[in-house]
């Protein structure tokens, strides 16, 4: 089976393994030996205060920041040194936090960018219209004219257009009202159920993380400080890590 065919097969892997990962900017290492396993079809929330290395960890997985030490693999295959374009071809999707949309492009073009060929577009669009029907009638609208919540839904829709086996999501709930957060939680859980996608979720919203994830891990000063199952009785334990 070709890589492309594997990518489109629901429930096919997406297992992520980080072993002693070190990375950073310039002379400073921000991620200092992170080891984390996300099993196939599992949702893991990576929590932590600002500046602890959560986004840097995601960018390192994506190859946007060079790996200084350790190993990263997807489905037991090393992805170290792979360009982001190669990772996307292997079915690794990304919903970024910083400047996440092409504001001056239409919604349609923002969504087109997630897939490799326009031949896949009708089917891919239909798959995300099921989750976000408002997109269907507004494809020609510029992304920058959407409300904050709608923009976040567009970011998630674009990541799902790829039909990823592994999805990396960076603080998707930041600044959103509870109803939109509930909608996003519902979409992620439905998509996992439908396609078996594996998700690594960087979050600051503890309630959302515990609702969606199977497990959590707290990143502190570039290292995993604690981890556990995402159950309601874990809330106080996690909060102790996140309190100032």
């Amino acid at each position: 089976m070709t890589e492309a065919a594997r990518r489109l097969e629901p429930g096919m892997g997406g297992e992520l393994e980080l072993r002693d990962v070190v990375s950073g900017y310039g002379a400073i290492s921000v991620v200092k030996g992170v080891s984390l396993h996300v099993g196939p079809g599992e949702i893991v929330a990576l929590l932590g205060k600002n500046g602890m290395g959560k986004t840097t960890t995601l960018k390192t997985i994506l190859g946007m920041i060079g790996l200084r030490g350790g190993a990263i693999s997807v489905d037991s295959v090393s992805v170290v040194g792979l360009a982001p374009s190669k990772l996307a071809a292997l079915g690794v999707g990304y919903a970024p936090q910083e400047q996440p949309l092409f504001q001056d492009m239409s919604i349609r073009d923002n969504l087109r960018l997630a897939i490799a060929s326009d031949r896949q577009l009708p089917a891919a669009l239909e798959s995300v219209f099921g989750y976000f029907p408002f997109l269907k009638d507004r494809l020609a609208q510029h992304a920058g004219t959407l409300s904050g919540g709608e923009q976040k839904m567009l970011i998630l829709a674009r990541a799902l257009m790829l039909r990823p086996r592994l999805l990396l999501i960076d603080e998707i709930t930041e600044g959103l009202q509870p109803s939109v957060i509930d909608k996003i939680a519902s979409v992620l859980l439905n998509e996992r159920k439908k396609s078996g996608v594996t998700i690594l979720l960087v979050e600051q919203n503890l309630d959302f993380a515990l609702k969606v994830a199977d497990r959590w891990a707290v990143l502190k000063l570039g290292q995993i400080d604690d981890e556990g199952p995402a159950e309601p009785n874990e809330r106080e334990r996690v909060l102790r890590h996140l309190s100032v």
Partner: protein
Amino acid sequence: MLLILDIMTTAAILFVVAIGLLAIFGVLKIINFAHGAWLTIGAYCAVVTAQLGFNPWLALPLAFLVGGALGGLAELFIIRPLYRRPLDAILATWGLGIVIGQLITLGFGRDVQFTPNLLSGTVTVLGTDYSAYRLVALAAALVIGVAFAATMEGTRLGLSARAVIMNETLARGLGIDTARVRLITFMIGAGLAALAGVLLTPLTSVDPTMGVGWLIGAFMLVMVANGSLLALAIACLLFGAAQVLISTFVSPILGSIAIAILAALVLRVSPKGFARA
């Protein structure tokens, strides 16, 4: 009528000369100071086509292919390591232009080369006899402009290029092969420059330094256009009109420097030039 036709065809020629530079500047964010050398390469493709006895129009596709291929090599081996060092890229492309000029001198000598007219004679436009070839240049500019806009708006390559222009980091994060987009864009820009070189052959003398004079005007126009195709078309029309009017009614010497002076004035008032003006 003659004046209007002169203005329109001059604007068209400026547009054809500058569009390759605009493509490269828009996506790669570097000024290709070897652009003049690619114009010269195109013109010498016309010379070679004539020497081999082929139909002179064949020089157009030949120049696009040769210019694009050489542009690809230049991007891979010279430009690519310098994207994070734009000042070094300016020096490198300037030096590359000099090297290409010297290589052409080695191969063809310093003498002016002659090429057959792509189209001779005049046609009557609203009672005015006018150069058929200059009208062809106007049509060529329209075709190239529309094709370029259609590529940017209607193809996957154009979509990827627009994404790279707007936010390269995000484009990379979404899996766009930005290195490939840059390579193809440079090849297209270099190919368009060589194509422009062929179109210039009936209007200017062909020698190893012919591109230098055109480079300055193209550079000024691209700075004023700030990466926008529409702004480039407007700049070519306005500055082309100024060049024709000053040359006709004041002095041809002043007309030849009109573009540089006007561009400097526009950028002084509006640093973004005509883009989104």
